[in-house]
């Protein structure tokens, strides 16, 4: 990580305006978005969008050709190019040939992407952004921090200062007055401009139409008042049929600003008369800039399904702390990380991809159905392949994979036998057991790991067997969770075995982009867990469960070890998380609750993988209610706790405030107990509460459930 990057994070975190504005917005957005989608089947809608855009991405060239034919038949001039410089030259030449002195622009990310304004201004042309947010940042000499709300990082006082400095003295920090002032100043620019430049939100191949969405009405003026209109359109905006506008236009305003529809939508399908009766000159530039290459990349093709709503920014726990500028100059947030890697260079995304905590919030709300976290992991993998795996990382993985050695080291570290040095070996451990954090207490590393403790548990001999997959946290830090699993399953008549050959689930390697290591972890575990014939392979850690169920297959596929896939799939079918299995056993009548006299209140924290990958979030809630517990939901119960595996170590500055917010939300419920299905979250939240001296107890669901069963 570069020093400048780290500094930009620290600067952003230290900016109270930023975190205040974005923090409030993220709360309002969540509620507003839910209301906007009321009565709409979001899954069906986004499947429709993904189909429309996905199919377009498979035929970009044909659609561009079709678009050009249809638009030209209506009298539009269409220019197609893969080169951003050619776009800039085309517009400049056109402006010079037509004697254009001033240009008004409505918001266009494609022109931001190629830095068009600078090019035109250098040639002496006056270029005016007219979207209020864009105008403010243009005056301030800044870049957009958000795709939909470019100036969200600025306060009204800062805006006032910019207006006073750059436009006219005497403005006061009164928002309606500032807006009126902007209206007046920009109105004369609109009326005087010779050329209007816009982007487009959708381009329809069969009719040669472009769709432009705004709230302010500036795009209507940009496309109406000047005699020339130039639209710069990225190829990913193409769709085939006119009717397919509907699903995109239905989702875009709801996802972007929680509106049912923006104030204005213009669908332009050809030149129309100017105010003096002459026909308007309409130019549409279809810009490739690596979009075709993206379409041919089997992993990244889905990124072309983006409709640029920026909802991935609005729900991101990291974005709401650091804002957009940390991500770069054009595209920001989750999808921005991916677009920057493509429209810029892979190397440019090296730092920003590390901002992603892999919570999966963005994947849940994406109207284009893009698996953004997975694509960011793929960037990480490609960066690791390109740059090779650092020596220290290799050394670490060899320790992590040797379970006994790893436990011995962690144990020695936890009782202070190995001094910690910030830049020493331990800092680079892709593990989360080190002491290096100021914001939470750490669990002691158990003297005897679970793999040895289970040998001492007297289990009944049963016909049905389950293999328990411990994972490092249960094995080394929370063996009592493992014991509780054995206790519950024994009650249901299931004997639990602990295959000795099991090793790291490979998540640390996978999330660092070291797929070869991760694949080998998978192969070792598959062998160990399939050695004995068991009915279930059960884990109490959602990240491990996801690894066993899904990632082993994906990792082996990624490195071409296809021969091992059948076994990986066989394992996958047996894998189940603890709460889901317990719920099945209860339904089958194999487990029974004790009668409960005094109801205890609890709140539940949704772990990222547990909710958004395993979709098991309602199961533990239901179990505990059946047990007689009363659930009090906390605010943002499904927001990440800031753990993110080794994220706490790599980005402690960001992880800490995410945790802080979680702790406040827990304490606000006033209940004495938090239940969680992930030992990582238990460690993060438990450590955080402990450090604050809080009396709230944190437990894994299995621990509490074990007490409630007969």
């Amino acid at each position, binding site marked *: 990580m570069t020093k400048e990057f780290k500094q930009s994070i620290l600067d952003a975190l230290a900016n109270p305006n930023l975190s205040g*504005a974005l923090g409030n*917005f993220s709360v*309002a957005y969540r509620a507003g978005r839910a209301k906007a989608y009321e009565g709409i089947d979001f899954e069906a809608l986004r499947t429709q969008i993904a189909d429309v855009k996905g199919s377009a991405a498979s035929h970009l060239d044909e659609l561009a050709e079709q678009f050009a034919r249809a638009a030209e038949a*209506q009298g539009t001039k269409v220019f197609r190019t893969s080169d951003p410089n050619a776009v800039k030259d085309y517009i400049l030449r056109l402006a010079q040939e037509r004697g254009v002195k001033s240009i008004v622009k409505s918001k266009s990310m494609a022109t931001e992407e190629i830095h068009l304004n600078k090019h035109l201004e250098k040639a002496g042309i006056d270029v005016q952004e*007219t*979207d*209020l*947010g864009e105008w*403010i940042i243009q005056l301030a000499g800044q870049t957009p921090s958000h795709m939909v*709300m470019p*100036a*969200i990082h*600025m*306060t*009204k006082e800062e*805006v006032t200062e910019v207006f006073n400095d750059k436009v006219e003295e005497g403005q006061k920090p009164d*928002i*309606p007055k*500032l*807006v*009126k002032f*902007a*209206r007046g100043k*920009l*109105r004369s620019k*609109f*009326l005087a401009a010779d050329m209007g430049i816009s982007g487009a939100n959708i381009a*329809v191949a069969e*009719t040669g*139409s472009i769709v432009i969405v705004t*709230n*302010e*009405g*500036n795009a*209507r*003026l940009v*496309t*109406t*008042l000047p005699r020339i209109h130039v639209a710069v359109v990225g190829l990913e905006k193409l769709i085939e049929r*006119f*009717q397919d506008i*509907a699903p995109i*236009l*239905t989702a875009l305003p709801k996802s972007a600003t929680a*509106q*049912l*529809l923006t*104030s*204005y*939508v*213009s*669908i*332009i*399908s*050809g*030149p*129309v*008369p*100017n*105010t003096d009766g002459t026909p308007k000159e309409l130019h549409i530039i279809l810009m490739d800039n690596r979009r075709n290459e993206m379409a041919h990349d089997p992993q990244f093709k889905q990124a072309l399904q983006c409709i640029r709503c920026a909802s991935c920014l609005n729900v991101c726990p990291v974005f709401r702390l650091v804002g957009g500028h940390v991500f770069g100059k054009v595209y920001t947030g989750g999808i921005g990380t991916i677009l920057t890697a493509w429209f810029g260079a892979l190397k440019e995304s090296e730092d920003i991809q590390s901002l992603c905590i892999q919570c999966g919030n963005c994947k849940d709300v994406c109207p284009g159905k893009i698996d953004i976290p997975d694509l960011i992991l793929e960037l990480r993998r490609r960066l690791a392949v390109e740059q090779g795996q650092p020596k220290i990382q290799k050394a670490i993985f060899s320790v992590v994979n040797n379970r006994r050695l790893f436990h011995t080291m962690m144990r020695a570290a936890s009782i202070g036998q190995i001094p910690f040095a910030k830049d020493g070996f331990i800092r680079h451990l892709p593990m989360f057991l080190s002491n290096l954090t100021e914001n939470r207490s750490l669990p002691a590393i158990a003297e005897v790991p679970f793999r040895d403790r289970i040998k001492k548990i007297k289990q009944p001999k049963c016909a049905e067997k389950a293999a328990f997959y411990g994972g490092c946290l249960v094995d080394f830090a929370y063996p009592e969770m493992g014991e509780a699993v054995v206790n519950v399953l024994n009650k249901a008549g299931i004997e639990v075995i602990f295959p000795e050959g099991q090793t790291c689930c490979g998540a640390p390697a996978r999330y660092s982009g070291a797929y070869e290591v991760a694949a080998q972890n998978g192969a070792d575990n598959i062998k160990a867990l399939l050695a004995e014939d068991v009915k279930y392979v059960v884990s109490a850690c959602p990240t491990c469960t996801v690894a066993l169920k899904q990632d082993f297959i994906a990792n082996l596929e990624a490195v071409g070890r296809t021969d091992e896939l059948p076994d990986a799939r066989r394992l996958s079918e047996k894998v189940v998380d603890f709460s889901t299995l317990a719920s099945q056993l209860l339904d089958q009548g194999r487990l029974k609750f004790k009668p409960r006299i005094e109801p205890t209140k609890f709140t539940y924290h949704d772990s990222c993988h547990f909710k958004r990958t395993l979709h098991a979030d309602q199961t533990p809630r239901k179990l505990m209610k059946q047990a007689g517990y009363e659930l009090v939901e906390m605010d943002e119960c499904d927001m990440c706790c800031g753990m993110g595996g080794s994220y706490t170590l790599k980005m402690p500055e960001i992880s800490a405030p995410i945790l802080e917010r979680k702790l406040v939300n827990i304490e606000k419920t006033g209940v004495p107990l938090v239940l969680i299905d992930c030992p990582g979250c238990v460690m993060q939240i438990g450590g955080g509460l402990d450090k604050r001296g809080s009396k709230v107890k944190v437990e894994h669901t299995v621990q509490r459930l074990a007490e409630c069963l007969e």
Partner: protein
Amino acid sequence: MNATIESSAIIESFKMRAEAVSAQVQQVANKELAIELIVRLLHQEGVSDKPHCGAVWALSPMIGDAEKAKLQGAVPGLTFAVTRELAADAKVGISQMDWALANTGTLVQTADEVDKRLVSTLPLLHIAIVSTAALLPDLPAVLTRVDPRKSAYLSFITGPSRTADIERVLTIGVHGPERLIIVMVDELEVSA
């Protein structure tokens, strides 16, 4: 009977959605009453032939020569010969829309003629006339009714112009109108 219930539900939905985005909706029985209402509104707004007090009306089929003369007699400062200068200077713009969408409170207009866009964008108040019979349920319904090869500029208007670009504070009236009054007319031929 059912058709009536359905149509009153769709009207109520449209009104509710339009008002939710700060538009005002007034429903009248016929063209004559609509014109009366608009004249009253223009007087209330202080439209006159003084500078910056004009009103611009983009011609539509509902206004014949007779209505034109009557209206201009009743409201000095009202013009049907729309130019960009007059529209930019006017207080009020009036135009007739082709459809309305019930589930979003949206007005839709084929707006190839530039007057239609000038009067609905430049003045601070836009009065939009729409036939009650032109109410459609939603966006897909209108997309099947327009042919983009014949209508090169299709406008959708949902409430007045708005922004939340400064501190996310919703502010009405940026580059377009800060008020939108929708006049729904029951007995009015559907124009498109």
